[in-house]
């Protein structure tokens, strides 16, 4: 437990040392979502229709962008090796890193989503559903992402390869997440979407840290 906290603290400290890094995932999210009205035109009805999809895709990409940071830097300078040689089980360290990643790249998106939503002219009800789906979905994104980050360690062109591996796995989250917001806006029942998202989260929590730990071990060998 102490080690888990230590690793979270360490990762957050590293992020804080570069103040810009805390904000950049956020800004990326904001900029990408702002690009769409520019590329598509400012038709309010159209924007409202595509809002959930666009916001969710932007969240996906923003998460992706921070993923390379999860293990790559530690791998390169040998710190990951040292962690593998510490008496802590690898799963714990991996879990710590996933949590830290979510706190930097996931949580801020959830908090910022309402502001973006307003830009797309969503009403209060939709906004709250959007936030709820993001709150359930972004941890899954961080978890699944860790697998890709671990598998592509030390592989040249890793960050692009990683997106290739990870994005297909993200699709269910995207479908249910954006689907819930859309269903809500047309007055359908959304409890099904939420229970599916929760199921994804629970499954991911239960299995992914072990998978990622195995992948990290393979990479170090």
């Amino acid at each position, binding site marked *: 437990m102490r080690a888990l906290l230590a690793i979270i603290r*360490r990762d957050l400290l590293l992020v804080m040392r570069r103040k810009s890094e805390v904000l950049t995932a956020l800004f990326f999210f904001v900029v990408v979502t702002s690009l769409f009205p520019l590329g598509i035109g400012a038709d309010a009805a159209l924007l409202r229709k595509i809002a959930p999809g666009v916001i969710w895709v932007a969240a996906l990409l923003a998460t992706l962008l921070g993923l390379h940071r999860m293990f790559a830097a530690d791998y390169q*300078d*040998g710190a990951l090796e040292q962690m593998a040689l*510490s*008496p802590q089980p690898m799963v714990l*360290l991996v879990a710590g890193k996933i949590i830290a990643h979510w706190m930097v790249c996931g949580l801020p998106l959830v908090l910022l989503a309402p502001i973006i939503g307003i830009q797309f002219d969503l009403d209060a009800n939709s906004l709250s559903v959007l936030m709820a789906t993001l709150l359930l979905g972004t941890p899954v994104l961080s978890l699944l992402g860790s697998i890709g980050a671990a598998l592509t360690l030390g592989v040249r062109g890793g960050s692009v390869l990683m997106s290739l591996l990870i994005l297909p796995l993200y699709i269910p989250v995207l479908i249910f997440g954006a689907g819930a917001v859309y269903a809500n806006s047309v007055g359908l029942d959304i409890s099904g979407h939420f229970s599916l998202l929760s199921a994804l989260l629970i499954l991911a929590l239960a299995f992914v840290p072990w998978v990622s730990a195995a992948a990290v071990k393979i990479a*170090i060998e």
Partner: protein
Amino acid sequence: MTANISTTSSKNDLVLEGRGLRCVRGERQLFTDLNIRITSGNCLHVRGENGVGKTSLLRLLTGLSKPESGEVFWCDHSIAIDPATYHRELLFLGHRDALKEDLTALENLQMYAALDDVALSQEQALAALWRFGLRGRENLSVNCLSAGQKRRVLMARMLTRQAKLWILDEPFNALDIEAVHELRNLIIEHIASGGLVVLTSHQEVHIPNVQVLEL
């Protein structure tokens, strides 16, 4: 095996043993059927020309990579079976310094202590850094340090980490004469207190109880 009659002697006699180690890199066999045995209070100096497989051997001994055949034992237990207890006793320094460039020397030290489950007070950490000539630079981020100063931070880690077995890959690199001296003393001290050391170096090391393994 279920009935494991452990005959561990009450004396703290630690043994690192490699039996029949074989290492293959790419299509090249680096060494085969290598047996080594080091006990408490001894130092093994692995020598050999560039590319002969010193680093590869050291990584096998730490368990970071697996031998093609053969096994490594720590106190008669295979290290593959219970790595956590082995790693508790182990300190490995590789070619790379494994310091986070954005953190200060002090923070790096404290972070590793937390990961290694070692209690380390601020004073102890500072004292360790000062001993190796980093006074006044404790709060400088590591990327501002010179090549030798980074290695000195690692020496401070060696001091604070209470590991019995040190595996050091070319620890004398980039150190100035005084620091080399200091490090040698540290190793001698460690051996004297019953530790084990495995190291590589292209220079002579003047350490008592040193066995040389020519690869």
